[in-house]
């Protein structure tokens, strides 16, 4: 059973769609800005990567008003991916897809935290009777998946894996399982996150996980650089249309790449700190390669998790050396978060989409802000300019999350 990628959609700090996001990555643009809003004034960190295009500019007003921001992002990205896959109508039946063979897997790391916070304010200031009846459907973590499932009339199942910053990648791994198990023929899979608000920022800042480089927002996210000091919170969504190769062939769909395998492991080491040796991540990498039938010599590119934290980036580099051996020294690696910031539950999905595009276009976007590479990393990290890839081969995309979650996706060129 072969599973292929036939559609891509995204709304990110670099652009309101896949094309503008990809252009931004190739140009190594930064989506990180200062937060000048009043609510951010007293926060220890006042930088973040907001989406480039507000979803309310794209969605119908009435449609958008009962959706959490994370649901709005997911809907924008899912509609783009659906159309990109060549489906002319918005609902499955009208587009020639059996709704009972269409599933949705859309992850979120935190869920509808903006709704939770806003409605808690309503509760305190105006009382329980003024809390919106849409509160629960807007804050539940499966809300974005439900939104997409409703929009596309997906009836084979709607799912939401939650594994912090690995959620988006885990969604794609679950989609692969669904297709292989025959529970669906098409799966719309991805991740979304909208958590740029005082409480999440304060919480991440309290963990000392965030960069505090406020004087230079566009230089704050700097994976692998000696001067990295934490990640930058981002927001957005990315969605992929996955289907069995047979289904894609039957309808004559354009195929970007094959989703050839996935590897999932858990550290059981610490709730937030990475295993210093990267052993858990190395197992996810090895499992993904085995699942996809890949040798180290088949791997032509790695899209790293690389959030720009001092410990995490080193642990991942060790994991890559463990899993890939000497090949890890020469495989071109990139860190998408250097441009986009960290989209948490959407990051793995966005980076899977970027990995697919890297193979499809034969070019790896550069890592921004890598001025002075950390000697402990020892990888061939692409910087300054995009790097061309020879046709063929396979690429790996890593995602790790608080809780010790490790997910690696393996993508093959077609």
């Amino acid at each position: 059973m072969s599973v292929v990628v036939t559609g891509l959609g995204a709304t990110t700090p670099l652009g309101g769609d896949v094309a503008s996001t990809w252009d931004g990555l190739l140009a190594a643009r930064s989506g990180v800005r200062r937060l000048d809003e009043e609510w951010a004034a007293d926060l220890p960190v006042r930088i973040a990567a907001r989406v480039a295009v507000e979803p309310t500019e794209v969605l119908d007003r009435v449609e958008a008003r009962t959706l959490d921001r994370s649901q709005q992002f997911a809907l924008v990205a899912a509609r783009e991916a659906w159309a990109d896959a060549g489906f002319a109508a918005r609902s499955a039946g009208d587009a020639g897809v059996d709704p009972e063979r269409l599933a949705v897997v859309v992850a979120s790391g935190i869920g509808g935290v903006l709704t939770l916070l806003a409605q808690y304010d309503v509760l305190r200031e105006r009382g329980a009777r003024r809390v919106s009846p849409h509160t629960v459907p807007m804050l539940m973590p499966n809300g974005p998946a439900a939104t997409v499932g409703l929009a596309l009339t997906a009836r084979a199942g709607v799912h939401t894996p939650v594994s912090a910053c690995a959620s988006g990648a885990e969604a794609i791994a679950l989609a692969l399982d669904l297709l292989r198990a025959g529970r669906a023929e098409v799966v719309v899979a991805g991740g979304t996150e909208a958590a740029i608000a005082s409480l999440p920022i304060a919480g991440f800042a309290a963990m000392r996980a965030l960069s505090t480089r406020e004087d230079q927002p566009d230089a704050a996210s700097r994976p692998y650089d000696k001067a990295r000091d934490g990640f930058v919170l981002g927001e957005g969504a990315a969605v992929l249309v996955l289907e069995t190769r047979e289904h894609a062939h039957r309808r004559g769909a354009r195929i970007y790449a094959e989703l050839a395998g996935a590897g999932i492991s858990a550290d059981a080491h610490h709730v937030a700190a990475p295993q210093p040796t990267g052993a858990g991540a190395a197992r996810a990498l090895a499992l993904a390669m085995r699942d996809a039938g890949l040798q180290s010599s088949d791997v032509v590119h790695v899209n790293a998790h690389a959030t720009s934290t001092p410990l995490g980036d080193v642990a991942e580099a060790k994991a890559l050396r463990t899993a890939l051996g000497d090949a890890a020294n020469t495989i071109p690696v990139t860190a998408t978060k250097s441009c986009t910031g960290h989209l948490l539950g959407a990051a793995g999905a966005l980076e899977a989409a970027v990995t697919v595009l890297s193979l499809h276009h034969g070019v790896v976007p550069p890592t921004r802000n890598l001025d002075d590479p950390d000697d402990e990393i020892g990888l061939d990290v692409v910087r300054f300019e995009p790097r061309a890839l020879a046709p063929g081969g396979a690429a790996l995309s890593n995602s790790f999350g608080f809780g010790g979650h490790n997910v690696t996706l393996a993508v093959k060129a077609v």
Partner: protein
Amino acid sequence: MSQQEILAGLAQIVNEIAGVPVGDITLDKNFVDDLDVDSLSMVEIATAAEDQFGVRIPDEDLKDLKTVGDAVSYIEKAGVAA
């Protein structure tokens, strides 16, 4: 407040919440069957109407407000009582 004023105010609320064109919101229309207002949006409409017209619409009364005319009459009477 006249029935016309209540209807106009209610129509604005229904338009804002459910996106129904103001001109379609007439006394004979059923919220669910004609205007496609779901139960959650109906709660929102009731809350907004309470704020705008200074009345209270308990849940046991809300379930009986099937048409726009039902709601307008209810608000009219509740307003007089208040």
